[in-house]
């Protein structure tokens, strides 16, 4: 069952990756004439025609497409126009830097966000909750590149506490990671707050209380684990948003990652490099999603068996499949407002900043 589930997720991942490549191929080839871009502006018309010929740009589009596809299958994304070396290794060379930045950023942001979210959720609507919610909102409201520039100016140039830019030891990662961490921090803090608030209102929490379990054990061992499901779902989405920020932040801080390389590639219209960058970035996201699938499996045993959880791939076919069967099993339950607790109010699951 579990293997079958994992197999399905893996197949799905491969399919998505393939579609990303195909989509990018068509977008990229619509940009312009690859031969023009490789040659210097002063190249003769003859040289241009020769280059077209040698690049196979005169072949039918399907032949060209097939050549690219067979290249992808062997990991060949072509030669970078800009740096004149195979594109994929060039990108892979940059991957560790991006992974390091990702790890440092999320390694700080995620635990901190969880902590903030839980603290907020313990006393929803309290003064501490409101303060933290406002802070996390500020985190998602700030333009990361602006923050990056400010950090360089203040911390790097004026205070000279940390290197302004570049790549090296951990101290180099602090400023870009700070600039990048704020948004996921804010997002995840909000999500974990609302997930915790919601989880703490579930009846099974009452059951645990009724069994005499101390409140901190309930939070730690039960509510937290179960509220992780929405949190990591959003966390998965957040990876894509995070890489959005990384593209800009890596450029500003001259961090030798894939995001900065993508900007350079697109500025130089280096089509093979652009494709390879998108491939690597999409792969990162897809791998993260596979890990999230594994996490679901670990957290929620129902995942593999029913696949009815709301998944990050929001459109998974199974999502509403059991509707038709559950229809007939509608039991005569009491109506929504009959629960006195709900009627008595205070059942607020959303974030609030009154």
């Amino acid at each position: 069952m579990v293997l079958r589930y994992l197999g399905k997720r893996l197949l799905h991942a491969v399919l998505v990756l393939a579609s990303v490549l195909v989509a990018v191929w068509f977008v990229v080839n619509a940009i312009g004439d690859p031969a023009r871009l490789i040659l210097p502006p002063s190249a003769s018309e003859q040289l241009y025609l020769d280059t077209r010929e040698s690049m196979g740009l005169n072949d039918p589009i399907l032949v060209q497409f097939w050549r690219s596809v067979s290249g992808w299958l062997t990991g060949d994304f072509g030669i970078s126009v800009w740096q004149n070396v195979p594109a994929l290794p060039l990108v892979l060379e940059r991957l560790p830097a991006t992974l390091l930045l990702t790890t440092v950023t999320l390694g700080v942001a995620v635990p901190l966000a969880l902590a903030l979210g839980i603290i907020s959720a313990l006393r929803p609507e309290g003064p501490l909750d409101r303060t933290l919610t406002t802070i996390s909102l500020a985190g998602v409201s700030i333009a990361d590149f602006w923050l990056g520039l400010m950090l360089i100016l203040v911390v790097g140039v004026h205070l000279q506490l940390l290197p302004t830019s570049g790549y090296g030891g951990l101290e180099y990662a602090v400023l870009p990671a700070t600039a990048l961490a704020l948004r996921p921090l804010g997002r995840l803090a909000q999500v974990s707050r609302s997930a915790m608030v919601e989880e703490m209102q579930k009846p099974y929490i009452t059951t645990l209380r009724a069994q005499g379990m101390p409140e901190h054990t309930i939070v730690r061992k039960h509510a937290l684990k179960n509220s992780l499901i929405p949190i990591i779902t959003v966390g998965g989405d957040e990876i894509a948003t995070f890489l959005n920020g990384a593209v800009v932040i890596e450029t500003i801080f001259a961090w030798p990652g894939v995001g900065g390389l993508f900007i350079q590639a697109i500025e130089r219209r280096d089509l093979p490099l652009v494709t390879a960058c998108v491939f690597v970035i999409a792969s990162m996201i897809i791998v993260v999603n596979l890990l999230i699938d594994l996490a679901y499996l670990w957290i929620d045993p129902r995942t593999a068996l029913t696949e009815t959880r709301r998944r990050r791939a929001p459109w998974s076919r199974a999502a509403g499949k059991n509707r038709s069967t559950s229809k007939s099993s509608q039991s005569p339950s009491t109506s929504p407002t009959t629960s006195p607790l709900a009627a008595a109010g205070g059942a607020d699951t959303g974030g609030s900043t009154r």
Partner: protein
Amino acid sequence: MSTQARSDTSAPVEVGQAMLSVRDLTVTFPSADGPIRAVNGMSFDVRPRERLGIVGESGSGKSVTAQALLGLTPRDHTTGSIVFEGEDLLTAPQDRLRALRGWDISYVFQDPLSALDPTRTVGHQVAQPLLLRRVPKKEAHRRAVEMLGEVGIPDPARRARNYPHQFSGGMRQRVMIAMALIGQPRLVIADEPTTALDVRVQAKIIDLLYRLTDEQGVAVVFITHDLGILAGLAERVIVMYAGRVMEECSTDELYYRSIHPYTLGLLESLPRISGPVPERLLTIGGGPPAPSRLPTGCPFHPRCQYVQPECRTTPPPLERPPGGEHASACLRAAWLAERPGELR
């Protein structure tokens, strides 16, 4: 407020013989439209080994009462006293409360699916009360399996490793009962434990609850909206309406010689599966009030066919006729008692 003054004198049962004694319990929730009184001056006792039924419609405050009994309602919104074996649960320290919960007093919930942690095995959850009391893991698990067998789950050793969603509704409710009884409590509070179940399963769960509590000598507070269920199960019944006790008496008294217009109306409006089929059912007009919009005076007065002018202004206290056990919060209780014969 007038009930507060009288509550002590009007207590229907002597304190001495009760294991649980609730006095003037009031639970208030804040809301955007001002505070809402979900429970309003409830007083009742539960005697050892007794099966007490609490019946009420939606919004009558019965579930809040159940939660208050375990100290699960916010303390700053709960007043009165709940004395369990000499200890007031509303003032006892939280640690003491936790020690009592799941061990001396336990709880069976209405919806067994949402009341179970979806991500833990059933065995683990049933063993939880033992684990919390530092019973060794192995021993706790053994007893959990034993308990699951006792509540009628086939192949309990294997099923203990399953998750709640792998059980049917009835089986889940059995798990909840196993969880409630594993600590050998002296009082079980069952809040609509069969509402979501089909009649045949419902009957089985009731039989099980009856048998286990009977065998173990456990007192049960059984909360439901269904008068039919209590008829066979309960020894004594409390009828709640709008957060108040309307009538309290032995089961037979209630069903055959009720002296409260609300109970009478309920019983008359029930269609039955035996006896003559009436052309029209007798009905209570209107509907139960929302807790946020309670009428003044007797909360039932807008629907009452025997309404008196004073009903509209003062809520009648819960009173027993002299020498009797049958309490009713109705000005016309005595008049109703005069009416000859049984209801059926």
